[in-house]
Structure formats: C-alpha cells, structure tokens
C-alpha cells in the first residue's frame, strides 16, 4: 500500500454525504495530488528527479497561505498536508524505518510515482481526446437505410391441441344439433296462432295444406307443421271455434270459422265477408 492511500480511504466514508463540495475546494484543483502536480511542474524538472522535500515544503506553504485566505480547506488537502509534514520530518531525520517498514526515501519515491502515474494518465487522456471523434470530426452515414425484416411465420401446434380441438367441437356440435332439432318443432301454440290468422282472413272454407305451405318452406319442418296444425285444428273444433271438412281419407282438409262464435267475437273478427255468408 502506498502511504498516500491512507487519507483517501479515510475520506470515502466521510465524503459520501456531500461530494460536490469536494470538486473545487482550492481554486480549481482536483484534489491534493492535482495540487502537488501543479506545484511539481513549477520545479521544472522530471518528476522522477523531483525533490519531494522541496515539493512538501511548497505544498505546506501553499496550504498555509490558503488557510490565511479562506476559512476552510477540504479535509483531503489537510490530511495530505499532515502526511507531507510527517514525511518531511522523516526525510530530515537520520534514516529510520517507519511503522510500516518503509524508509522515508521509499515513501518519497512512492509519492513521486503516484504523481508520475497521474500525469501519465492525463497525458494519454489528452492524446485520446485529440483523436478524431465520431460525431465531432468524422461522421457515419447520416441517413442509414434500415434493413427491412421479412418475417416468415412458422406456426406451431401440438397433436394434443389438434385432437382436443376436434373432440371438443364434435361433442359440442352433437349437443348443438339436439338444440336445432328442438327448434324445428312447430309447437301447438305456434300452429294455433297461425290457424287463427287463417280463420281471421278467410270467410269461407280454406284449404289447410295450401295455407300452411308458407310455413313448410324448410323441408325439415313439413312433418311438424302438418302434425301440429292438424292437432291444433282439432282442438279449435273441440272448442267450437272452427269447423273442419274432408271429402275422403287423405283428401285435402278444409277449415272455416264457426258461425256461432262470430257474434261473440264480432268486434275482433272484423272482416266483412263472413257476414255476407
């Protein structure tokens, strides 16, 4: 571990709360290393040969000056100042080994190396930034032409899907047909309504099967229409509402309103022709 690490590790926890304050605490320097680098450049010598002692002195003087001018300095700078003061005292004293086994010279070299490293990164950063940059110096095609995607659908279904779909439908359609058959039945009530309509419009004998033709367009309906209307007509005769007439077996059946009832229902059966009869 480089000695310089100490202050910064300490800072991490402290600083987390209000980081922005850190950025420009001392007139635009980006931290103590940055300040040291600037001071080092003033010595105008290679960083490898720099006098760390002189640099430490400069830094401490700078901090002292800054303190006089300002009320507060970021802790980084003060910690670095404390560390440099310690280093300075070690450098001035006869050679001893520090608590971590490093000589004062080692500590100085480590600091110099950190400065060199920061400088080196700054140097490559500059080189990187002067490269032609995309969107600044060089440009990609301004109107790229999209690749049109042609989608080929591939369908998937399992045999189980297929079989259950079939079974479900067949089962459903079986039930469906039963319901349909029910609907093909012409109920007695329906037949009666139709027959009453017939009696209402025809004064004289009307042929039943001809009248019913209109209801027998659907072949499936023929038997039920015939059966229901016959049953209904018998019922109407029984009630004394209608009369039926047939010449012979299987001959056409004729039907007419029964006259007696006419008076009873005269205001409803408003056709003039029955009166004439």
């Amino acid at each position, binding site marked *: 571990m480089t000695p310089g690490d100490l202050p910064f590790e300490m800072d991490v926890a402290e600083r987390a709360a209000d980081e922005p304050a850190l950025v420009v605490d001392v007139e635009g320097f980006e931290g103590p290393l940055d300040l040291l680098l600037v001071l080092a450049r003033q010595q105008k010598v290679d960083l490898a040969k720099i006098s760390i002692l002189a640099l430490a002195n400069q830094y401490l003087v700078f901090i002292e000056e800054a303190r006089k001018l300002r009320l507060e300095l970021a802790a980084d700078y003060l910690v670095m100042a404390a560390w440099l003061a310690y280093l300075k005292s070690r450098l001035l004293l006869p050679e001893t080994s520090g608590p971590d086994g490093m000589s004062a010279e080692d500590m100085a070299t480590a600091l110099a190396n950190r400065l060199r490293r920061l400088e080196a990164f700054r140097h490559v950063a500059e080189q990187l930034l002067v490269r032609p940059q995309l969107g600044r110096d060089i440009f990609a095609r301004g109107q790229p032409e999209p690749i049109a*995607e042609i*989608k080929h*659908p*591939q369908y998937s279904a399992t*045999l189980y899907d297929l079989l259950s779909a*079939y079974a479900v439908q067949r089962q459903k359609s079986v039930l469906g047909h039963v319901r349909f058959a029910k609907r093909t039945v012409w109920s007695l009530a329906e037949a009666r309504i139709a027959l009453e309509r017939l009696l209402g419009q025809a004064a004289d004998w009307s042929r039943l099967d001809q009248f019913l033709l209109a209801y027998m367009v659907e072949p499936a309906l023929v038997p039920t229409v015939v059966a229901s209307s016959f049953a209904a007509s018998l019922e109407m005769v029984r009630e004394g509402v209608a009369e039926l007439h047939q010449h012979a077996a299987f001959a056409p059946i004729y039907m007419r309103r029964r006259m007696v009832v006419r008076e009873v229902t005269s205001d409803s059966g408003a056709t003039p022709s029955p009166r004439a009869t």
Partner: protein
Amino acid sequence: MASLAERRLTIVQNEVESMSEARPEELRLLEALLFASAEPLDETVLAARLPADTDVGDALNRLQAEYAPRGVNLVRVAGKWSFRTASDLSWLLTKDSVVTRKLSRAAIETLAIVAYHQPVTRVEIEEVRGVVASKGTLDVLLETGWVRPRGRRKTPGRPVTYGTTEAFLSHFGLERLDDLPGLDELKGSGLLDGRLPAGFAVPVPSDDPALRDDEDPLEPGDLDFGLAPPPSRVEE
C-alpha cells in the same frame, strides 16, 4: 500476345491511377457532405459549403456518374441530392426471419375438422363448428402449408374442397393420416366423453390425393383467389 495483355493491363492501371490522381477535391467534399448529412441536400446548401469557385452542378454530375455503377448511387430527389442503395440491390437490405406463432383456437379447430373430414368444404366445416368461419382462419391454415385446396365438390356452387398436406403429417409427427386416433381412441384418452348419442361417428380420415367421385379438379385460376398468398407477401 503476352505483350498485348500486358499493355492493356498497363493502360487500365494508368487510367485508374490518373483518375484517382486527377479527382478534384470538390468531389471528396461533396462525397463527405452528402454521406454525413441526415437529409438530402440541395445545390445551394452544398455550394455554400464548398470553395467559392466550385461548379457544384458539374461536380455533382461527375460524382453521380462515378457512383452509377456502384452499390450506392447518388440520386436526385425533388431537387435534392443524396446517396441511396442501388435499386437493384434492395433485396440485400432485407432480412428474413422466422417468427414462431401459435395457431389461434379457431384455426386449430378448423384444422382438426379438415384433417378428419377431408375432403371438406368451407360450409361443411362451418356446419361442424357451428360457427361461420372467418376467411382469415382458412387463410392462416393455407399459409401454414398444412392445408391445401384439393378440388371442387360437384354440387351447386362448386365449393372448393380442402385437405391436409404432407407438411401437416410431418409437423404433427404422423406417419399416415389414419394414424389420427379414431372414436374409440378418442374416448379412451378421455378427449371425448362417453355420453355420445348412438350413431356418433368419427370418420376414418384419408388424405389420398386422388380426387373422389364427387370432386372436380381445381382450375388453374383457383389458387389465385388471394386465399393462399405467397409466403413472401404475408405481412405480420
């Protein structure tokens, strides 16, 4: 003979060289401007960017001629210039991708009926399903390649009959169509329950390509009804 070939090669090389040597700088500038621009540029805009004495119209024509045989052409649209992929290469800018889709319930129901009852007409499918088939459903099935029009039923209206294809068998892992389970198997597997009316039957399906007695062959135009669009035209 060899010398002739050599000479011709030299000529070609010289031409190429002299062309690139003599290529005026304004063509480079135009190239870069038109390439980088997010929209087509008109001559006024281009002229404003180029050295004052440039004949922009002439330079554009030269550039256009240069790019004419290339994969990218310089085109003029509505008075503005831009680079565009050569029109004969538009196929290159397409990507085929396979999207897996699940068949809709209606489609799989229809497919099942076609499979068991083939050859079957649309009206017959509707009868079994008890629902009027949406046109899209059969279209989707035709698109899957699992269903095909077989012929026309010899009845009034001559409706198209449908059947399944080999692709159908292979997708569903069937060796032959009569590997489709029959009534007893459907009952046994619980897909059909026992309470079925007497006379309820499941047909023994057959996809024999030979037309049946009540089928006429399809006429040439029968497939062009838009029922079976070519796969490439099928959108989403």
